[in-house]
């Protein structure tokens, strides 16, 4: 790393002498340094027990159904007793190795799903095609108030009619027999293979809303979802202490074979205690250890650290226009402060993400390059280097764009010689939030741009998004983060009609590429990759947002645990996880 | 015309109770008291603790609201006046309080204490004010430099004199003195009592002198009213009361005065027992079935007693 000025460089030098210890901690290459699968190759003992930590500062909510749950902690609870019907590969595409197989029709519009025999709910009932249908019926139900009525659901034929209460049934879903059904989509889209909904709901167990056996509200708050849920996963829920822990028993009837462990205990552990709980052996598995405490993780002796890329990234967004409520479209504002893309490029170049990744996150975050993240191995353009830290380049670009310091106060004025101050909005929360925002502001200051925090403060989550959504004029730039899910299609975040496209960036090229990326032609992986490479390039050129960091998640796993993996491409399955002592 | 005429004055305090804290009953602190004060005289109001003396005084000066009755001062009924309209009478009626310690604001020096009414009613330059206060201070027998001292630097008697000086600043016509000496030592009492007599002549004052100590009242008053349970039981000149008491309650009060002749103490004790017996025996003749005192009946021109037979309002 290199500093901006002489002072900086000196300081850094000095620091390196004394801060040796810390620098040694720095993770040069996460992938190389951390495995994704436990290395324990001992014999898994029979009837072992495993304690899993649920690292969270809040209790799990206990909505233990994929259709209704909201919080990630609930998903962590569900994963041990319920499964998706399909397995997925390294690109998060569905495969035919799971509890169901699929076949796509010629026109890519219809998918036929066939559930394997022997896949049974924990109460012994077989998983039926109507159970999957039930999930769709619930998701599209007019009374449904959750957040999972997504594009992929809407796209099912007849779903809209059903959703609006105009139809009794979903015309696009056809039950062929107990184990087989077809789903027909309005438009063929390659996202289907990543984004298809494939979890079933045990209709016989929880009760049927469509038949009026109970209301939606009753269903959601039912004991059968909250404290005694069933699935067809490797373990059965035996007991739940609401909000804090779950005890699972082995599901002897598991379709893949006998799960390795007799019991699994899952308990909520606060972020602050996670590392110590792992050290003490209170928990065997700690998914997602807090990276800012990396220093204390490295010397854990009884556990192994695994790392994997997360499907999310942080970015700096540049407000470029407005949301037009009439047309439901994003509209560029040619007079936006940051309308000149050279300024945006310069601002990206000014960001010293390398230093931030290294110093704030010990290298467990890496500078981001493009907007299709490396999580999507196939579609991420590794050759595109984005805009790396280069303050000189940034200054050049700014000079070129006419932003020069005319009044000698150390800050650049705009081409008309007016004061040029940018308002930067950033979210509060987390220890790092504040110094991070300051660091960025200083980075920009170093290239002569005056940036100040919007309203002089960090904004709490809701206020922040509220302001963004309403295109608050006090925001010129902001720092945000997106989770991408498992579908690489960026349309929902950067499309012309995407409300979440908070920068309000639009361009015809962008429209075209995004459309192509999810067109039937894109079922061809090479084609799709090509399109997304072009789109990544466009984004690096136009810079509506400057991606800042990709994140790694660190899992801590006790050394007695075997067959534990976080590798998406691995063939190891959850039921094989065991302990060797 | 008398200076002050109190006519069937009643002051009731509400007692609240029950579910909604509604007014359940009243403490009849003053329950139909009538008397007159002539200019220049001292009228003593005597009675045991809680009989309503203070309440009467406070009602006259406006510190308590009046439930019923009239307080006619120089022909104007104060009880029916609004608070704001009363203001101009404030100058004419003043009060001397019982406790010389709490009646002076400990945080103010004598100058500020005495000048307070001046600042409310008269616009004086600081020098004029200073001169007036100094004059008053000297009048009450304190040295001029004491105006910069604070109350705690004075003895009880001196403080009481400061209180009197404050009451005198506005040249009042009537002074209500509520037990002005009962908080003081014997030796100091004398000081204050003498002083009050002196200024009475000098300023042509009328006193309503409230006390429970018959010795003092006898020393000070021209006429007396004996109060019991919020009503007057007997009224008359000093001699009427002390030489010719009629009401058993009055007699009881008189008998309670300690005997200064040690030899006669046993007689006194016997007298008290006798009076108490009388009081019990004659109770029904002087109190109605509710234990309420009857209305005053004139015995002579100056002397009246509450006896059965008067109409009970």
């Amino acid at each position, binding site marked *: 790393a290199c500093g901006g000025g002489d002072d900086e460089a000196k300081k850094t030098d000095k620091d390196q002498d004394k801060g040796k210890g810390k620098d040694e901690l720095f993770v040069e290459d996460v992938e190389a340094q951390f495995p994704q699968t436990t290395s324990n190759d001992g014999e898994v003992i029979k009837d072992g027990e495993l304690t899993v930590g649920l690292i969270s500062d809040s209790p799990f*909510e206990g909505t233990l159904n994929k259709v209704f749950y909201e919080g990630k902690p609930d998903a962590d609870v569900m994963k041990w007793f319920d499964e998706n019907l399909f397995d997925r590969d390294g690109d998060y595409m569905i495969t035919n190795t799971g509890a169901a197989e699929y076949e796509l029709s010629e026109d890519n519009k219809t998918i036929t799903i066939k559930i394997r025999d022997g896949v049974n709910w924990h109460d012994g009932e077989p998983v039926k095609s109507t159970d999957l249908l039930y999930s769709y019926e619930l998701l599209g139900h007019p009374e449904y108030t959750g957040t999972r009525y997504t594009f992929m659901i809407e796209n099912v034929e007849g779903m809209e009619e059903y959703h609006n209460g105009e139809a009794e049934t979903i015309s696009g879903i056809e039950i062929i027999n107990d184990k087989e059904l077809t789903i027909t989509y309005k438009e063929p889209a390659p996202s289907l293979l990543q984004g298809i909904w494939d979890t079933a709901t045990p209709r016989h167990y929880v009760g049927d809303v469509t038949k009026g056996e109970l209301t939606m*509200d009753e269903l959601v708050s039912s004991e059968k979802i909250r404290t005694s849920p069933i699935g067809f996963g490797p373990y059965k829920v035996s007991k739940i202490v609401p909000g804090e822990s779950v005890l699972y028993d082995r599901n002897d009837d598991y379709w893949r074979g006998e799960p390795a462990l007799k019991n699994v205990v899952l308990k909520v552990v606060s972020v602050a205690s996670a590392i110590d709980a792992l050290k003490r052996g209170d928990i065997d598995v700690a998914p997602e250890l807090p990276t800012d405490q990396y220093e204390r993780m490295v010397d854990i002796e009884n556990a192994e650290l695994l790392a994997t890329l997360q499907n999310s990234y942080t970015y700096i967004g540049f407000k470029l226009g407005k949301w037009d409520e009439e047309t439901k479209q994003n509209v560029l504002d040619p007079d936006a402060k940051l309308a000149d893309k050279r300024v945006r490029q310069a601002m990206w170049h000014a960001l010293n993400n390398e230093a931030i990744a290294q110093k704030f996150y010990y290298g467990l975050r890496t500078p981001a390059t493009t907007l299709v993240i490396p999580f999507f191995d196939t579609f991420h353009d590794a050759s595109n280097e984005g805009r790396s830290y280069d303050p000189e380049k940034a200054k050049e670009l700014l000079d070129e764009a006419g932003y020069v310091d005319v009044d000698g106060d150390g800050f650049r004025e705009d081409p008309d010689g007016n004061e040029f101050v940018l308002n930067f909005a950033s979210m509060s929360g987390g220890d790092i939030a504040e110094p991070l925002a300051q660091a960025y502001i200083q980075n920009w200051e170093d290239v002569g741009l005056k940036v100040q925090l919007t309203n002089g403060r960090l904004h709490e989550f809701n206020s922040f998004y509220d302001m963004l959504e309403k295109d608050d004029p006090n925001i010129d730039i902001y720092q945000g983060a997106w989770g991408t899910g498992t579908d690489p299609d960026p349309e929902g975040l950067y499309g012309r009609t995407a409300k979440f496209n908070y920068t309000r960036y639009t361009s015809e090229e962008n429209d075209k590429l995004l459309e192509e990326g999810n067109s039937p032609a894109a079922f061809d992986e090479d084609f799709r990759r090509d399109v997304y490479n072009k789109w990544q390039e466009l984004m690096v050129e136009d810079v509506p947002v400057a991606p800042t960091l990709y994140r790694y998640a660190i899992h801590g796993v006790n050394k007695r645990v075997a067959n534990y993996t976080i590798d998406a491409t691995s063939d190891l399955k959850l039921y094989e996880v065991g302990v060797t002592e | 015309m008398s200076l002050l005429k109190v006519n069937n004055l009643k002051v009731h305090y509400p007692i609240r109770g029950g579910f909604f804290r509604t007014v359940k009953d009243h403490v009849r602190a003053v329950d139909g008291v009538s008397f007159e004060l002539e200019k220049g005289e001292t009228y003593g109001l005597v009675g045991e603790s809680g009989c309503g003396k203070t309440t009467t005084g406070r009602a006259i000066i406006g510190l308590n609201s009046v439930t019923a009755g009239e307080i006619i001062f120089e022909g104007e009924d104060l009880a029916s006046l609004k608070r704001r309209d009363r203001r101009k009478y404030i100058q004419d009626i003043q009060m001397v309080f019982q406790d010389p310690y709490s009646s002076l604001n400990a945080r103010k020096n004598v100058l500020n204490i005495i000048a307070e009414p001046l600042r409310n009613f008269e616009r004086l330059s600081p020098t004029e004010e200073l001169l007036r206060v100094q004059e008053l201070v000297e009048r009450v027998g304190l040295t001029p430099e004491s105006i910069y001292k604070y109350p705690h630097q004075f003895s009880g008697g001196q403080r009481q004199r400061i209180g009197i000086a404050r009451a005198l600043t506005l040249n009042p016509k009537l002074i209500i003195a509520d037990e002005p000496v009962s908080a003081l030592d014997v030796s100091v009492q004398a000081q204050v009592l003498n002083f009050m007599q002196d200024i009475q002549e000098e300023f042509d004052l009328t006193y309503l002198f409230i006390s429970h100590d018959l010795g003092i009242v006898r020393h000070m008053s021209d006429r007396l009213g004996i109060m019991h349970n919020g009503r007057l039981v007997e009224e008359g000149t000093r001699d009427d009361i002390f030489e010719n008491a009629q009401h058993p309650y009055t007699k009881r009060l008189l008998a309670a005065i300690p005997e200064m002749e040690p030899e006669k103490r046993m007689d006194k004790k016997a007298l008290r027992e006798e009076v108490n017996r009388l009081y019990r025996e004659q109770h029904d003749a002087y109190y109605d079935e509710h234990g309420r005192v009857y209305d005053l009946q004139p015995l002579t021109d100056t002397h009246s007693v509450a006896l059965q037979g008067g109409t009970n309002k």
Partner: protein
Amino acid sequence: MIQFILRRSLVMIPQLILLSIIIFFLASAMPGDAVTGAFQNNPNVSPEQEEKIREKFGLNDPWYQQYGRWIGKAVQGDFGMSYTHKQPVTVLLKDRLANTLLLAGVTLIVTYLIAIPLGIIAGRWQDSWADKLIVTYNYVSFATPMFVFALLMLFVFSFQLGWFPIGGSVDIRAESGTIDYYMSKAKHLVLPVLSGALLMTYSTIQYLRNDIIDTKFKDFVKTARAKGVPENRVYTRHILRNSLLPIASFLGYEITGLIGGSIFIETIFSYPGLGQLFLNSIMLRDFQVVTALVMISGAAVIVGTMLSDIILSIVDPRIRID
């Protein structure tokens, strides 16, 4: 007595209604709503769907309309659905309330168990070394931020010494109803309770000490001494009973402190209770829950003050309630 309780309960109703109005008003002033947060993580949902849900929950209506609907149901005991938890607020609060009541109740008792003896010692032997020690402890406890102390407790007694569990309210394996179960519950309570109680003793010690020092020189204590009552008995029979009165009258407000403290304690010890729930619900704008929680804590304080009035009326014959 019954009348008093009835009257106070009646007074409580308008207070709680006012409280709920304020909450609704404030809620409307806060940026975002329950839906904003939920959908922020889900770029794949159309804005229309988001809007539709908002419409369904009536979140777009002016606050007084929302309030009208809410109060209409609330009087029937229905406090609405929690958006984030997808269940009726009453159901949601049930478990958490039990946990918090246990934690808060035990903390309060332990606070008094620590504070009252210390206050007595300090007051009785005023200016002795024990008094100085207690007073210093008192100031230190007052100055120590609760979360730092709780973290240190967690660190030392759980992480380093391993004496107590690191969080939660009970071991999942303990069979409910068995001795083990209660032992496990107790073990889980120790650290959270101590972290709270050791710091909450401040006002009790302070008041008790001062009051004892005041009472020591009162006339009736002199009377007692003049009767030849031994010094210890003078304290237990005469001074202490009088000095405990102000402590009893603070009970209601002690509860406010407990509620505030629970937010810290529950977060640090992963103890699923109301404090945590409140913080999360504010963050997620789950106002049905927030309202219910504020009402609960308001009611707790009112009931607490009522309780202390009742205690006072029992202990102090001068106070009569009817």
